[in-house]
């Protein structure tokens, strides 16, 4: 098992290098650092001197790959590629274009993000599974049909409408929770609850339908019939036996959900004024800060790969037949 994890981590290295090279190419080949400086300085103040100053200030003044003028090993390290890309591999994020330490910002903003994402993810999964199992319990009835129709309609509504509508209804009309903002500690609860609920509700249509098909695939199996023949209640059959066996496809689906969770984070955080990583990214987009976007892309890739490895480990937990080697 440990050998498997180590091997998977080693496999991750070329992928992370690939991600890095790709973003580097995107940011520095499509546009040269000169273009970037010109863009940030605005059209009026562009002088060759201002461009050079901007580049020195932000560390873009070195050659891209090979610095012939530098002594010794610095020939390779005093380059944009090394300073801005290679350092990412060891999580040295450097400075943003506005001069702040990105690593510090990420560590600070991680917690509000987690406060939203983790409850959304955990409670959401429980809700989706329960709702899907209930439709399977009532399968063939109008309740099931109504549930499926509702799910299709709900998944056709853009997440933005849930957020806008929810904020309007609960914060402005009913005044149950504050409209936006964030606080540390336990008092964060009243700020977190609405984004979490809306995050769960917006995903319910698609997830419920997906899980329902997994459960329906398991429902006609022999072991289900055996369980029923033994006289187990239908609820018990569903929540014990069917659920356990449907866990593998559900887990695979959960990995697919992780990137969309990130999107959800972007929208939720900017709408509710939560100072997390999503809002950080959006602010970076609005201020055209390449350093931050670069760091976030890399971080996202790392999280995705960690998520994949964790999924594989989870397989062994829910299905003893799966052996990692």
């Amino acid at each position, binding site marked *: 098992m440990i050998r498997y994890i180590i091997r998977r981590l080693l496999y991750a290295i070329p992928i992370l290098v690939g991600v890095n090279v790709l973003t580097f190419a995107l940011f520095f080949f499509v546009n040269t650092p000169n273009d970037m400086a010109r*863009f940030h300085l605005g059209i009026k103040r562009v002088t060759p001197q201002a461009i050079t100053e901007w580049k020195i200030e932000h560390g873009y003044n070195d050659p891209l790959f090979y610095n012939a003028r530098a002594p010794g090993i610095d020939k390779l390290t005093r380059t944009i590629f090394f300073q801005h890309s290679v350092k990412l591999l060891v999580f040295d994020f450097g400075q943003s274009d506005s001069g702040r330490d990105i690593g510090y910002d990420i560590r600070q903003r991680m917690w509000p993000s987690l406060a939203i994402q983790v409850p959304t993810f955990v409670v959401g999964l429980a809700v989706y599974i329960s709702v899907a199992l209930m439709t399977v319990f009532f399968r063939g009835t109008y309740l099931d049909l109504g549930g499926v129709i509702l799910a299709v309609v709900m998944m056709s509504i853009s997440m933005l409408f849930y957020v806008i509508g929810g904020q309007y209804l609960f914060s402005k009309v009913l005044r149950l929770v504050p409209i936006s903002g964030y606080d540390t500690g336990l008092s964060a609860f009243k700020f977190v609850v609405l984004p979490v609920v809306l995050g769960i509700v917006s995903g319910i249509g698609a997830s419920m339908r997906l899980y329902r098909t997994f459960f329906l695939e398991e429902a006609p199996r022999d072991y289900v019939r055996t369980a029923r023949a033994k006289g187990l209640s239908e609820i018990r059959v569903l929540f014990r036996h069917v659920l356990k066996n449907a866990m593998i496809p559900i887990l695979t689906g959960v990995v697919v959900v992780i990137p969309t969770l990130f999107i959800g984070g972007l929208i939720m955080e900017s709408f509710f004024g939560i100072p997390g990583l999503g809002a950080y*990214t959006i602010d970076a987009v609005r201020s055209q800060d390449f350093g931050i976007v670069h760091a976030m892309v890399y971080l996202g890739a790392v999280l995705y790969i960690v998520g994949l490895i964790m999924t594989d480990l989870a397989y062994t937990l829910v299905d003893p037949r799966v052996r990692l080697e």
Partner: protein
Amino acid sequence: MAFKFVLLPTDALLYLLVVVAVIYGMYAARHEHLRAPWRQVRRNPVAMAALVVLAAYVATGLLDSIHFRMRLDVPGAGHHQAIYAPQVRSVLDVLCGPLRKHVERTYSAPFALRSFTPQMVRLPGGQRVLEYPRLQYGGAGIRTSTDRARDIALRCLRATGETLALWVALVCAVVWWRVRHPGEFMRTAFVRLARGATDTPWRTILVTLAVVILLVAAIVNLGGEYHILGTDQVGQDVLYEAIKSIRTGLVIGTLSTLVMLPFAVAMGVMAGYFGGWVDDLIQYLYTTLNSIPSVLLIIAVILSLQLYMANHAASIDNIAQRQDIRLLALCVVLGVTSWTGLCRLLRGEAMKLRNMDYIQAATALGVRSRSIMTRHILPNVMHIVLISVVLDFSGLVLAEAILSYIGVGVDPSMNSWGNMINGARLELARDPVVWWSLAAAFLFMVTLVLAANLFADAVRDAFDPRLRTS
């Protein structure tokens, strides 16, 4: 000539898509293994109703994809030297002329006669009072709200009458067309249709069509006189914006998968068929792309593109072109982020097919790899491609809204539902609430996405062999 055609890149791709769809239709009609699943889709009433709605959207989108520039009458310019307007218009713009031209000063509620926001007006005596100014176009010539109610009722009645006339003609045409099948009388055909006992669910189709025609007739009759869905902050008719956004949604939904489709299919089939280092390389490629969360990749690319376009602004000569380049870039990026799933599916399927007897036989007979892939593997994985294209559509339309909200979607000056929502998100905080922009974007989007979802479900059910056996 009174106008000059303008072919935007996305227009060309949309036309190409229509051509491909027609060729596929002709091909499918001649092959039983494709006709059978499509027949199943045709018999599904929900799918056919969804198809009618989709067809209405597609028709609007295509009308909005024929672009031209009008000739300007410039005195002094000779006959040789025609001068064309800088604005690029589409056929839809011409059809929606009154909607486009009736621009008020600021917000007005649906069917309003007066502006939504009060304005300081100086009375002849020199006094200043705050009053709600009369709209310039909304309900012009109508004095009181009772007059307005009567006028709206009359116009609705006329729209209903027109719809009814057209619809009865349509029903007769369908019945007459079905009677031409041997051994059926006009009356029995009509009764069968009314009972819903026809093979193709004509009753559902015709009822859906009636609703679509009624809505169009209502817009035609009311749109010229009133702002049916109000006006936005700069006084633009919201209904017009929502209609113009249809093309953006359709382009994103279709072109995004299609620009990368040949690439995804080739890579997936090659990886599965060849195995070995080809497989390793292609797998590495899509794992790397896949590991960047798509929204971040899109952000990175669009940021880069914004910079590029800002520095090369001189070579782009008008707004329509700038919007279109950005739209196409967004499609390509969305395509790049979404081709990996299809590629993986195709790789798995090709790996399975590679060991089939008929492929082995072809190999033994000395058929070249390229022929095996195009002749024997490709036709057998096409259903996966079709399902994935159809299923992706609604997700892409939804993605556009979110991306435009973040600020990395279509050009901010372009009509799109995402931009409408983005512009309207603070309007709910006003008192009284300005709800109509959001409502319009919501209605148009939900209808399209719901129809696409329902149709996609039917297509998947018909084409997925796993479902067919169970």
